[in-house]
């Protein structure tokens, strides 16, 4: 049954991808891309990657679509020129695809428990997590503790990209200087989206907090929670107008969040050194090393969540402000 479902989703995914490239209307392409993301998220779920599916659904189908649409509003909705060297590009791509497909016959069998990728460090992670960290979700344990350095790097990349967008687009004109007619009303005059949104937004925020603090026990964590909370506030901005969203969380506060998240992460790392361990060694944070690990993961996940929320919202407001 799962086999049929997997093949079905993958086929739809390929069809969607080809449609995305073929259409000349960029609006259609962006919408189709949201659908493709949803198919990919479904596939991740079939492949036992619940955490990744949650992230892809929140980011790919939600925030990415909004960002592309705001960029389209600032540029243009249609492609004007024809493709360059269609035949040549198609030949190159087709040959490369054939080579890749030929290579797949040498890959280890799908789901093989003895494939090289399964016999390296993964068994150690699965075996030692209950002893060293004692949380049910191994993905969170690897993300927060075993590969904490890696995650710190990723958080700093997100931080840098956010700063980069703010440098390129500016963080927006001050609100007081805007003429009245320029103030974006959002969908405030449309009854149905407004009523539905009012009911949904508190629950999305609550779900975001659940995902943040339940990340040790179920699928979730800072990256997913940050994306979900940002999505809820972006939804609020779309429904009530950007200005109202900015009066709830001002741009200055967002900038503070962007900086505070990585600082919190780094502070937890340095606390490890100060208390006599290594950088990002959480075992020394508490008298009991397992409790210390759990505390460290909780804190760095909070740092990750704060960074992701701050960066995604700052990027959204930077694009929205450019349109004024």
């Amino acid at each position, binding site marked *: 049954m799962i*086999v049929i479902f997997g*093949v079905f989703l993958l086929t739809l995914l390929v069809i969607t*991808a080809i449609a*995305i*490239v073929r259409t000349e209307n*960029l609006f259609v392409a962006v919408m189709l891309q949201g659908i493709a*993301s949803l198919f990919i998220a479904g*596939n991740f779920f079939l*492949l*036992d*990657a619940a955490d*990744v599916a949650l*992230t*892809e659904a929140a980011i*790919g189908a939600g925030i*990415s679509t909004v*960002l*592309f649409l705001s*960029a389209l509003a600032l*540029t243009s909705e249609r*492609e*004007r020129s*024809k*493709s*360059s060297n*269609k035949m040549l590009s198609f030949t190159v*791509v*087709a040959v*490369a*695809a054939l080579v*890749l*497909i030929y290579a*797949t016959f040498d*890959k280890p*069998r*799908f*789901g*093989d*428990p003895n494939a090289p*990728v*399964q016999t390296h*460090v*993964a068994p150690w*992670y699965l075996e030692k997590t*209950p002893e060293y960290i004692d949380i*049910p*979700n*191994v*993905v969170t344990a690897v993300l927060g503790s075993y590969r904490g350095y*890696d995650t710190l790097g*990723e958080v700093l*990349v*997100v931080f840098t*990209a956010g700063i*980069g967008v703010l440098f*390129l687009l500016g963080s927006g004109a001050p609100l007081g200087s805007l003429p009245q007619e320029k103030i974006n009303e959002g969908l405030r005059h449309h009854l149905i989206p407004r009523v539905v949104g009012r009911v949904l937004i508190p629950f999305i925020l609550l779900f975001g907090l659940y995902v943040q603090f339940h990340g040790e026990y179920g699928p979730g964590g800072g*990256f997913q929670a940050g*994306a979900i909370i940002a999505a809820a506030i972006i939804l609020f901005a779309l429904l009530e107008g950007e200005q109202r969203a900015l009066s709830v969380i001002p741009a200055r506060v967002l900038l503070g969040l962007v900086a505070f998240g990585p600082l919190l992460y780094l502070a937890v790392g340095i606390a490890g050194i100060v208390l006599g361990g290594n950088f990002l060694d959480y075992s020394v944070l508490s008298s009991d090393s397992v409790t210390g690990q759990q505390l460290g993961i909780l804190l760095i996940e909070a740092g990750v969540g704060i960074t992701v929320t701050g960066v995604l919202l700052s990027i959204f407001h*930077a*694009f929205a402000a450019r349109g004024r």
Partner: protein
Amino acid sequence: MEILGLYYYWVFAILLMVGLYAVIAKRNLVKKLIGLTLFQSAVFLLYITMGKVDDGTAPIFSVTGSNIFSNPLPQVLILTAIVVGISTTALGLGIVVRLKEEYGTIEENEIQEIDER
């Protein structure tokens, strides 16, 4: 299972190349970024496919669950890569918006023409 496994890899190859085609052949910069996103998604799909173990479940210990788990490591790598991906895509879109403001177009060939003048 055999066919499904190969099918996942084939979809990876096709998706990767569809994305690459958009990057090479299309002249619209937003379309190129969309192609890049597809390319990226294909890589994510490959990683997660390789982490799957027969009869495994999500790597979360539960009271009643089985003790065969899929590989958590590729999941961690891709989880963070998705969030990094959206941030870098946003940076790319920011550059496209600035180009539009400077040149009045987001078509690669028109930008080149303006530059050569």
